[in-house]
């Protein structure tokens, strides 16, 4: 028994690692994925491109412009001087927003009349648009405050000069001081990269397990395996163990890159993460095994993998917060093991969470893992008989 098991494990390792191209498959895709994800996956709006359309041409409007320039959040991408030029810039997506100062702006400001500055947003990317809108609103509010105080000071000076006695009429300012926890610089990379770790482990172990088993069926070597004295359970262990190793290896590799290249903070316990990864692998290997029992060809296995993987991945809270989902979808995510692993990985990385905070997720993962693996093994057995 022990010997047979060792043999089959050896065979599987040789089969999985023999081809040099296959070997490179084990570390190149995870690293490339991490690099692209790490650098590309960001919802931050660092430098919004704006066009400045000044139809007033006064010191006041230039003052407002310098407020925008000084904020460090905008890049001025152009100065259209007519509607058509502005329209084209927006249509081509060259700018995220156009700030338009209408004629009469300075006059209204000087007379103390309430006036407005147009902010025309490209709403195509709704997320960027709402962030840019916030930034622009802040700049305009700052300018408004400044010009208001300037006027007030002038009034006060003239009031004092006209000897009506000292006037103490300073308006109270209420400011906000914001403190951000866990991710003080609000770097979305810190939020996304732990998620990428989850994504890579899931995809690699799920698809490799499913396809490796179906491959034997498709090219007909499964029959050969069946005539050997190997028992089904030994076959399953032999088939899945290499991918446990691959999964753990990918986790370590991606984690090392996340810490060394992207400097994502790691505040929790490494062994906790290691243990939950093993727990999570029960689920992915079980699901891979399951897909292999319902597929006859690798193409079917792959289509099934991608059909399964997408919903689980999207509903895990990776990019799209679970809180924003409709109630029904939020309930559905309770059935999604990837969600629990995502919460654990992010908790361990960013919040330094320990077992006392994460045990519910770990219990859920264990239940899912054992159930899925057990069901798949049953199905696999039946199919072999």
């Amino acid at each position, binding site marked *: 028994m022990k010997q047979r098991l060792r043999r089959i494990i050896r065979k599987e390792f040789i089969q999985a690692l023999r081809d040099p191209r*296959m070997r490179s498959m084990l570390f190149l895709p995870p690293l490339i*994925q991490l690099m692209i*994800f790490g*650098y*590309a996956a960001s*919802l931050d709006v660092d*430098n919004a491109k704006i066009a400045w359309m000044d139809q007033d041409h006064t010191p006041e409007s230039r003052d407002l412009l310098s407020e925008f320039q000084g904020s460090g959040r905008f890049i001025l991408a152009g100065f259209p001087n007519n509607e058509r030029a502005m329209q084209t810039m927006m249509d081509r997506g060259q700018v995220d927003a156009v700030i338009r100062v209408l004629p009469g702006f300075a006059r209204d400001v000087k007379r*103390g009349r*309430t*006036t407005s*500055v147009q*902010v*025309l*947003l490209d*709403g195509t990317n709704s*997320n*960027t*648009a*709402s962030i840019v*809108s*916030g930034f*622009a609103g802040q700049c305009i*509010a700052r300018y*408004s405050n400044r010009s*208001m105080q300037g*006027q*007030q000071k002038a*009034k006060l000076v003239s009031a004092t000069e006209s000897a009506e006695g000292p006037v*103490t*009429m300073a*308006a*109270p300012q*209420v*400011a*906000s*001081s*914001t*403190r*951000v*926890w866990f991710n003080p610089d*609000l770097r*979305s990379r*810190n*939020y996304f990269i732990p998620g990428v770790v989850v994504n890579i482990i899931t*995809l690699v172990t799920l*698809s*490799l397990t499913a396809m490796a088993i179906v491959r034997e069926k498709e090219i007909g070597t499964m029959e050969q395996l069946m005539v050997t004295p190997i028992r089904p359970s030994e076959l399953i262990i032999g088939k899945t163990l290499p991918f446990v190793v691959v999964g753990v290896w990918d986790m370590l590799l991606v984690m090392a890159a996340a810490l060394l290249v992207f400097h994502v903070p790691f505040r929790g316990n490494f062994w906790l993460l290691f243990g939950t990864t093993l727990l999570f692998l029960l689920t992915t290997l079980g699901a891979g095994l399951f897909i292999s029992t319902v*597929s006859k*060809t690798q*193409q079917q296995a*792959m*289509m099934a993998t991608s059909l399964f993987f*997408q919903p689980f991945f*999207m509903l895990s809270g990776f990019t*799209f*917060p679970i809180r924003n*989902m409709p109630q029904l*979808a939020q309930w559905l995510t309770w059935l999604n093991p990837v969600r629990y692993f995502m919460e654990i990985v*992010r908790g361990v990385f960013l919040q330094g969470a320990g077992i006392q*905070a994460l045990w519910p997720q770990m219990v859920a993962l264990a239940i899912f893992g054992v159930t899925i693996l057990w069901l798949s093994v049953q199905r696999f057995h039946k199919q072999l008989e």
Partner: protein
Amino acid sequence: MNYRRTKAIARKEMLHILRDPRSLTAALMQPLVMLLIFGWALSLDVDRIPTFVYDMSQTPESRELIRGFRGSRYFAIQEEVHAYRPIDQAIDKRACLLAVVIPEDFAKNIGLKQPTRVQLLLDGSDSNTAAIAQGYAEAVVAAYSQQLQVPIQTQSGNIPATVNADVRVWYNPDLLSSNFIVPGLVVVIVMIIAANLGSLTVAREWENGTMEQLLSTPARPAELALGKLSAYFVVGAADMLIALIVGVFIFHVPLKGSVTLLLVSSSIFLFGALGLGIMVSAMFRSQLMAYQMGTLISFLPAFLLSGFIYSIGNMPRVIQIVSLFVPARYFMEVARGIFLKGLGVELLWFNLLLLIVYAGIVFYFAARKLRQKVA
């Protein structure tokens, strides 16, 4: 290039597709599942931010400020607490994303016309939500601050000159993220289908040993590539139509531009995407590797580097340069342009030209790769 031979290959490939109803069903289900999830469940819109309030001041002034938060649809005040501890615990449990702490001397300072501060505590783990929440919260505080100034200034005989931002949103006035995502999803779905189906078609023949038989027929490499491509083109086009119809009629994404232009440009893109799949497939003789490679060079870039969710302008320079070689990026602009902005050929011709050139190059290399195997 012989029409009859190409047609024969296409027919053979079509039979393969039709005789594997499971794969076909999966291929046709894919756009439905993705659209359903993206269109219905996923959203980046931030509202009803779970908020805790810790009001140390307990004065009419502080309650006025809290009313500002209550009145905004962006905040949902979960609880008013009387210490920092419950806030700590709630943030740890993710029950709360923002806490507004009003200091004890809040009303006193306002009475004395002294500047005062309100503390905002944010859970920054999800930086995007946090940044948006921060913007909204600061706006509420700023509005309150401004509201304080008005009576004082009027009193001093000063007419307040405030400058407001008059925000108008073009193309997507309600800032619905489904309008942003669904047109992009069409692009991603095409790429998935091409990567999944296209990348296996040649590798499978090698693995099953039928490639030799194919090579012994008089069909030339280019005919082989075109025949295989056209069979999968039908599947891809069906997927695309499903995606378009569901997007427009179920999710009510506005289609402002020309339908014909959209269909034509989608076909060009689909051709290029399938060509890439077949090229990858011809390079690897194992389905497993072809699939991995296909995912890596077609699906991932289409998802990540095309501006689908993450805008290209924010990426580091190197990645921006890499994204120039991702065809999905150009088609993404075309699809969104036609859908949301109603753009026509006069603005999109350059992107279309790039897509045509790309399709040509990829097809050439796919055929050449097949030829190398023949030799």
